[in-house]
């Protein structure tokens, strides 16, 4: 998978406050990558740096494997915090400006307004929109030109439940179409629903990152290995003990069924004459960490 965004040792301080410290992340093509953390954990700062709004104090980042340049942002659709447009211009003219910036024709405007369910408001001034509509216009603008990457910072902020559901649906659709998504959020369930990868930030430091289902899922996950992994995999798949099996670096990664325990797996393997010589629980010291983290909010 191609590398989309790589962040290396990024740091930024505002006066005495360290917004992010030595942050390292790697985001690959096709991932739906959540950046999860409470308010003030450095999510917006991180996204502001990679979208060129502010300069970092230290460290570096690259887009598509190249050093950052303004023209790369034309392939990235971003919405950072609340969307800001010209209040006195109508939606269509505001999007024309974005098209001009990205150097693309205006014919995409109708499509993105339609996607964001704003087509009938296209002649309204931006200032007359409700908060939810402004947020949707922000997403519409991000979708202009069908960019490879979407960078969304709290896209459901300030929306009513219906609005939240609509925006989530819209974002999930984009992910299903194969876009890479970078989504910052302080809502655990949002990241769980939309993303497949997640990085958890706290006070500007990276606590953990990895697959959502590993870090946040309720299921117990263990990694095992024996001399005949293929045979073991086949046997386990036939049993009722596991929901899912993946192979990672020559190890079997099992998502256990609700009632199964690692001991069950071990005795099941032994009864099938397979001797497990490696077993490690990936269980959720991380999840409890995150819950503590969220509690502080």
């Amino acid at each position, binding site marked *: 998978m191609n590398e989309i965004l790589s962040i290396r040792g990024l740091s930024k301080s505002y006066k005495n406050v360290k917004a992010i410290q030595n942050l390292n992340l790697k985001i690959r093509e096709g991932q739906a990558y959540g950046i999860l953390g409470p308010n003030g954990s450095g999510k917006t700062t991180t996204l502001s740096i990679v979208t*060129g709004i502010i*300069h970092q104090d230290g460290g570096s980042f690259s887009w598509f494997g190249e050093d950052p340049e303004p023209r790369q942002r034309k392939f990235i659709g971003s919405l950072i915090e609340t969307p800001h447009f010209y209040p006195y211009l109508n939606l269509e003219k505001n999007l024309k400006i974005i098209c001009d910036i990205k150097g693309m024709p205006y014919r995409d405007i109708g499509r993105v307004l339609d996607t964001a369910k704003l087509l009938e408001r296209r002649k309204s001034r931006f200032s007359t929109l409700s908060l939810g509509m402004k947020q949707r216009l922000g997403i519409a603008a991000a979708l202009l030109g069908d960019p490879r990457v979407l960078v969304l910072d709290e896209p459901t902020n300030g929306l009513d439940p219906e609005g939240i559901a609509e925006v989530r649906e819209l974002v999930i659709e984009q992910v299903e179409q194969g876009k890479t998504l970078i989504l910052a959020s302080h809502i655990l369930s949002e990241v769980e629903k939309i993303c497949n990868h997640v990085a958890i930030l706290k006070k500007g430091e990276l606590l953990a990152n990895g697959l959502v289902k590993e870090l946040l899922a309720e299921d117990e996950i263990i990694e095992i290995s024996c001399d005949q992994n293929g045979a073991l995999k086949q046997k386990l798949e036939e049993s009722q003990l596991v929901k899912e099996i993946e192979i990672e670096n020559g190890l079997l990664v099992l998502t256990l069924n609700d009632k199964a325990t690692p001991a069950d797996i071990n005795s099941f393997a032994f009864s099938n004459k397979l001797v497990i010589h490696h077993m490690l629980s990936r269980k959720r010291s991380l999840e409890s960490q995150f819950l503590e983290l969220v509690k502080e909010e």
Partner: protein
Amino acid sequence: MRRLLHIEQIKLLNYNPFRITLGIYFVAFTLGLLIYPAVDKEIPVISLSDLFRFPDVWVFLTWVTEPYNVLLALIIIMITTKEFNNHTFKTQLIFGLSRNELLLQKLLSIVVLALFATLLLGITSLTLGLLYSYKLTFKIAMENTWVLGRYLISSFSYMSMGLLVALLVKNTALSLLSFLAMRVFVDPVLFLVLRKYEIRWYLPFRTTTQLTPVPDLIEIFEKKMNTNEPITESAMELLPKGLSPWLNILMVFLYTSLAIYFSHRLMQRRRFT
């Protein structure tokens, strides 16, 4: 370039305060100049219409309309600080403009407005000249048109200063106030305070106003009184004060370059929130 200009065009032509201010500028400029000669026809001897003849009309109108450049600078301040208020500098950055392009956008607006102002001055001067000159030859008419070039530099310089103030202060009202205070109060007062020193001619706004200096009105009227002949040759001698014209232009270039240089630095370093 064309892309940036088009973005500015959408922003500005739909922005009411811009349209209104530019409208006021246009009306004040043309109407004011057309009314002058109509009003003072009756006053004998000292008639302003003498000043509307070729080639004096070029220098006279340039001097009269120079203060209108303040209005243009105010427009630039208004549209630049508005981008801060609306957080739209940030939006443009996010969608792919570079910080240099943000500055270039505003500089292009400045160039277009300066050309517009100069063109307007050219057309009004030409109109009045054609209406009031007794003796009309191409050579006389075209004499002194070089002041249009100075006017262009003057408007550009005013607006660059306005841009710097806007990027520095960010707040619309405070920027307008600081710019006006500099132009109307600080600069003139310093000019008076420093009256014994040559340095007063180097004050930023003084050099800019000296680009379009006061025509020697007394001499023009004296000539008119001493002869009954209509004035056929140019009586317009620039008042022999201040820096030599080329040094003056050089100083204006220096100040304008500094204004653009510092605007560039501010644009690079500002945190757009």
